[in-house]
């Protein structure tokens, strides 16, 4: 029973140096990245002192909150992933596979909080999940406003404007992933702030407002505003942007943060804060990096949502990679909690167990989605499990009490460096799950797409020849056009994570198949290179490191992918066996308005929701459609056009006896230059 099972410790082998020429750029997409942060005066559980973890049971004893039923009796959609276990599952079945085709839009609103980047404001990226609680639908906007809506009509109940500056202080766009909701166990009638909505801002402030009135909660931090930047005391290159709403566990807010991608070698180190939900007082912190590494590296933060099992007393952290992203010469020691899933004791913040999914991460493979908790029956044995989706396209399934693998996870040898990168070391092995199978085949260099190659007169083939690829985890290089990655940071699964139907024990996940290439540039060469860059692509300095870098999607000059379709899929897995039940292309790619065949699929950002009606709801695709699929067969059952790609998780809720499905369509310039401010809600005809 591995506690703090940082799997095997890799031996690092030194590398040598070298570098070479440069080139230009094209377009792009890619992921989102790092965050870092720091804790002030807290006895954070650094990895060193966390090894002997408090057993899960004792944590459970210490927790006095009610357990979360993994097959919920009542519909809950009061957080970013619907439920704290991140299943994104609703037991509602009024809308089912037989009648979902009759869905109609019952209301929509446009918040007005949108920018395409052409004016004074940066573009907006809106990935909020509508939160249904307190008989109200709550949303946060990328202009950092909270809006409370009537769930049946969309009529505004109240709104609260944080008056936050609309500047891209850390991320390249104005980003928001919505709000969090907390309520007291026994709300006192007539007393305010017994139910609270929380939302963070890019300038590192967390706002707490009364869920009924929208008035700031005076008893929370400084008159309803918590300045998280007060704890930004190491390598404070940027504010600790609170783009992801806190994870609410009992009376605690577990708070991570986001930062600036690929910009610095030394960056704010990843710290997670546990805050009293009523007062805003800091209760404990968790640090993913040792004291030394906090100074010389940074990030390894949690910038996405977390999941929790209150019965076990554990909160599960998807931890990102340390800085800088594509060179690790400043962190040659082991960083066991970087790029990991780490389980903490909710009461103390101590590490109970941790599994590192990428050793010495030099690919920006941040763990970017909350692990989904599930009870599964494997070989007749009921296992309290979790599944961790990753950018790599791997799905890791472990026992959520102990971190022990459900199906074998093998340490396999991986390619080393080519000797061109100064100061770098390489992990000799990396963890590979044996089940479920990888969502894409990364074992071989992906084939060039003949069509894209032909219309670009061989541009794709030429690029392929200039890209190094010796399999998954081929390290970045300075040579040629660099290293091919399938995927690097943009591919695999994004923050939408895995949905799970606890009745049929079926997991559902959307994935992207994206080839990118990354190249390192010696500092002198980097300074003279063309450094135009876009949102999460192009050149980035990694200031302080000996290398800047350039990351691009492998497109031809017409903007066509150089690799073969499909470019994105929806996949259903039988979690009793780990086998794939079905998989199908998801959505359609779209360029300049022209739709590509649906058999090619679309890269996806956003996530699915599943219901007891055997329906999967998902947006996520480039074509800005929202869809329903059969959970059983994967057949598309319904679709509707939305304003922009719905790069968020849908919400499923019931209000006054009627089931609704809500989509936020905000777009993400990583996927496509199309932004929106639409909330669209669907139901069956009355």
């Amino acid at each position, binding site marked *: 029973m591995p506690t703090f099972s940082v799997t095997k410790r890799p031996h690092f082998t030194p590398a040598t140096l070298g570098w070479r020429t440069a080139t230009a750029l094209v377009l792009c997409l890619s992921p989102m990245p790092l965050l870092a942060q720091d804790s002030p005066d807290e006895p954070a559980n650094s990895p060193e002192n966390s090894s002997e973890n408090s057993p899960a049971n004792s944590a459970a004893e210490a927790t006095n909150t009610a357990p979360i039923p993994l097959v919920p009796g009542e519909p809950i959609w009061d957080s970013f992933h619907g439920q704290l276990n991140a299943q994104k599952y609703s037991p509602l079945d009024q809308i089912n596979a037989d009648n979902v085709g009759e869905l109609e839009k019952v209301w929509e609103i446009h918040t007005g909080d949108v920018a395409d980047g052409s004016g004074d404001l940066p573009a907006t990226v809106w990935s909020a999940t509508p939160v249904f609680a307190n008989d109200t639908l709550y949303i946060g906007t990328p202009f950092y406003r909270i809006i409370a809506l009537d769930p049946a009509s969309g009529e505004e109940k109240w709104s609260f404007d944080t008056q936050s500056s609309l500047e891209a202080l850390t991320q390249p766009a104005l980003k928001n992933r919505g709000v969090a909701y907390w309520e007291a166990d026994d709300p006192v009638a007539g007393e305010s702030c017994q139910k609270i909505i929380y939302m963070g801002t890019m300038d590192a402030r967390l706002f707490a407002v009364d869920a009924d009135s929208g008035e700031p909660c005076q008893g929370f931090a400084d008159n309803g505003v918590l300045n998280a930047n007060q704890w930004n005391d190491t390598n404070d290159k940027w504010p600790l942007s609170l783009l992801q709403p806190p994870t609410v566990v009992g009376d605690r807010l577990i708070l991570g943060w986001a930062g600036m991608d690929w910009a610095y070698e030394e960056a704010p180190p990843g710290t997670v804060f546990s805050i009293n939900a009523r007062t805003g007082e800091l209760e404990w912190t968790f640090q993913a990096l040792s004291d030394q590494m906090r100074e010389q590296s940074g990030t390894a933060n949690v910038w996405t949502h977390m999941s929790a099992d209150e019965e076990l007393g554990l909160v599960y952290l998807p931890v990102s990679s340390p800085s800088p992203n594509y060179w690790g010469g400043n962190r040659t020691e082991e960083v066991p909690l970087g790029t990991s899933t780490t389980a903490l004791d909710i009461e103390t913040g101590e590490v109970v167990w941790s599994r590192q999914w990428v050793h010495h991460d030099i690919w920006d493979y941040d763990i970017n989605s909350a692990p989904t908790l599930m009870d599964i029956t494997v070989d007749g044995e009921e296992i309290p499990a979790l599944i961790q989706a990753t950018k790599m396209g791997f799905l890791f399934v472990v026992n959520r009490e102990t971190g022990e693998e459900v199906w074998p996870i093998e340490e396999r040898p991986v390619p080393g460096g080519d000797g061109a990168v100064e100061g770098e070391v390489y992990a000799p092995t990396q963890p590979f799950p044996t089940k479920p199978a990888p969502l894409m085949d990364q074992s071989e260099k992906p084939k060039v797409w003949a069509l894209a190659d032909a219309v670009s007169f061989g541009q794709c083939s030429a690029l392929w020849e200039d890209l190094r690829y010796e399999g998954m985890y081929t390290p970045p290089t300075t040579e040629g056009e660099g290293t091919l990655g399938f995927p690097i940071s943009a591919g695999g699964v994004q923050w939408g994570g895995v949905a799970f139907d606890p009745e049929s024990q079926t997991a559902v996940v959307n994935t992207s198949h994206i080839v990118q290439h990354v190249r390192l540039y010696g500092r002198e060469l980097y300074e003279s290179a063309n450094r135009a860059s876009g949102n999460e692509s192009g050149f980035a300095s990694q200031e302080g490191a000996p290398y800047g870098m350039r990351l691009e999607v492998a497109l031809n000059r017409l903007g066509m992918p150089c690799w073969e379709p499909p470019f994105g899929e929806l996949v259903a897995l039988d979690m009793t066996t780990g086998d794939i039940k079905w998989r199908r292309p998801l959505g359609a790619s779209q360029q*300049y*308005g*022209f739709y*590509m065949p649906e058999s090619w699929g679309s890269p996806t950002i956003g996530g699915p929701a599943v219901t007891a009606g055997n329906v999967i709801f998902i947006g996520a695709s480039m074509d*800005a459609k929202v869809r329903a699929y059969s959970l059983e067969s994967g057949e598309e059952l319904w679709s509707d*056009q939305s304003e922009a790609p719905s790069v968020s998780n849908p919400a499923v809720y019931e209000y006054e006896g009627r089931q609704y499905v809500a989509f936020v369509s905000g777009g993400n310039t990583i996927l496509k230059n199309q932004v929106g401010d639409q909330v669209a809600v669907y139901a069956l005809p009355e």
Partner: protein
Amino acid sequence: MSTLRPTRLGAIVLLIASLAGLAIALYAYFVPLTGVTGTLGALVAILACLALGVLALLLAAVKQKKAAILLRVLILLGLLGTFFAGMLLHQWWICAAMGVGFIGLILDMVRPSHHAQPAHA
């Protein structure tokens, strides 16, 4: 009743189809939630339908056989291209309009040519 009228039927059908395509493309471009609102592709469809309309007018007016043939070739290419664009834009009514336009082109080609036999009113 002018003896020219039957010979111009094809061009008139083509003109109507082009205008219908133009209306649909304008709708697709300007109205929210068409899936192609404000896109370059929808703009291209607008311009293509406009061009087809102009070509249809020219076809009705042209007197020389060679010029008529050239116009028909251009129109055929325009119809095919706009049909294909409509398909990729998922604007199926544009495809239908181009189908009607194609019928107009066929009518223009199979009817006695007013270009070869100028009519006398």
